[in-house]
């Protein structure tokens, strides 16, 4: 039998600070209605929020693809934007290329990507300069 999965796509616009964070709230609410374990909801909430904010701050536009099965929750985040010059450096805690304006808003502590990785069971990142960044994150349903 094919495993039942829920798929949703959310579009996000870069610099759209007025709506930033809404997609991760929607994802969180969806998971709660599905009866996903609260600890898992929280991890996915952190992952999707950090990814959404990265997208809003740095990219032109992008999408978050959510896939939920009874085994795991997969998030694919694709953006069109400047890309990341040195992915290894970007993964280091505290490294940030945030502008003073972003820091003014409480972002840019250099914890975004490390936080995503910390809360993921599987984590993949690839980036192409001038094209964009792609994240693939899996969180297992068992907390």
């Amino acid at each position: 039998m094919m495993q039942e999965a829920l798929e949703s796509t959310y579009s996000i616009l870069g610099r759209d600070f007025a709506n930033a964070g809404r997609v991760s709230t929607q994802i969180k609410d969806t998971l709660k209605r599905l009866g996903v374990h609260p600890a898992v909801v929280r991890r996915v909430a952190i992952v999707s929020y950090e990814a959404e904010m990265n997208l809003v701050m740095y990219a032109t536009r992008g999408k978050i693809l959510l896939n939920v099965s009874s085994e795991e929750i997969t998030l694919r985040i694709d953006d069109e934007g400047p890309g990341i010059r040195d992915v290894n450096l970007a993964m280091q805690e505290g490294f940030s290329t945030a502008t003073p304006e972003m820091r003014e808003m409480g972002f840019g502590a250099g914890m975004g990507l490390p936080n995503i990785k910390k809360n993921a069971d599987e984590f993949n990142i690839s980036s192409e300069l001038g094209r964009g960044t792609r994240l693939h994150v899996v969180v297992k349903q068992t907390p």
Partner: protein
Amino acid sequence: MVAQYHHSLRFDVDRCDGCMSCMRACPTAAVRIRNEHAVKLADRCIDCGECIRVCPRAAIVPLTDQMADLSKFECKVAIPSPALYAQFDSEVYPGMIFSALKECGFDDVESVSPACDAVTIATEIFINEYRGQYPLISSFCPTVVRLLQVKYPELVDQLLPVLAPREVSARAAKIRLAKETGLPMDRIGAVYITPCPSKIVAILEHPGMQQSHLDAAVSICDLFQILASAVSKIQETAYKIDPVESASGLDWSFVGRLPRSLPAENTLSVAGLPNVMRILDDIEKGRLRKYRYIECHACPEGCIGGCLTVENPYLARGKAIKLQQSLPAGCMVDRREVETAYRKKEFLMDEYLTGRPLRPLDADISRAILKMKERDRVLGELPRIDCGACGAPSCRAFAEDVVLGDADNELCVFFWRKELETRIEQLASLVRIQRHTAGGQL
């Protein structure tokens, strides 16, 4: 199995005309209109009282106690919420209200300020020694506690496990009165003078405690008139000299004043349920870790904005601040004594708070996924204007009700319009066929 929840509101079928005001105002989508009457979904209701505020027919009855209910106690002690004082003009001192409460039938009144000060100190100690996940979330508002249990169960561990001042005050009053009167504790009734109905739920369910020290709660609005008339007969001068409450006690009645001794950049204060929910959403996303303590009030402006108060909360706030200027500013308790009592766990909850998340679409995730797909399919056919005519607060809530078998498609007026259009079309084509066969003679 659906757990039985206590609630502090009753919908009066005779008064309710199904106008939908409460359904639209409910922050947790806990109201439906069925057969022209509002009904409450018990697992969703968090007893915030928003429905009481908006009901134009007073059809939502708070289940607070009446004075007549208190006769079972041999000794009745009133524990006034500090929000009570803000209902009167600032020349009405707390001591005058104490006398008025005694006129109304209470045998004694316990000042809540010492408990407020003690709980503030206990909160500071707890936060300084806490090594868990931040931010801690205040637990004195029962509606906020219920909101977390139902909608944010993963944050329940971050609720501050320190007792609310009203509980500490009730315990102190009972110990004092048992000594003074020689009565056993269970014959002494500690009665909260409450600005909201949620305190009733806190007494019945005593979250985080084996038992509440309070026995009943009478609403400020039920008592106000008789208190006001008693107060008007009192000479004020004597009470100015002998203050029974302190400025810091009154701090607990409105948002933004607690706990003052923590560095301001590490604390947040928020009031009003939609605002509280936004903050809790942010905490879930891991945003607010640098804050140590977040003070959350369900009502606008705090307890002074409770739905069972009488004064406009903004005016009440002004009155409270003015009254505070004439009250002593210092702490009413000895810090060392509080510290000693804290080490004996006297200010800590004695049970763990647990979440009780809303029933998901299905207990099995695979089946829940199927139901969510079905919900989205149903939603796709709905107009998404949230008109409420079906009796649900939004098309989305309605779609969910349909999938869960709690509502029928046909309740949607747009469903009927489509149905009607189809039938008219069918009828029209029937007429065309008949015309044709009649050779255009019709």
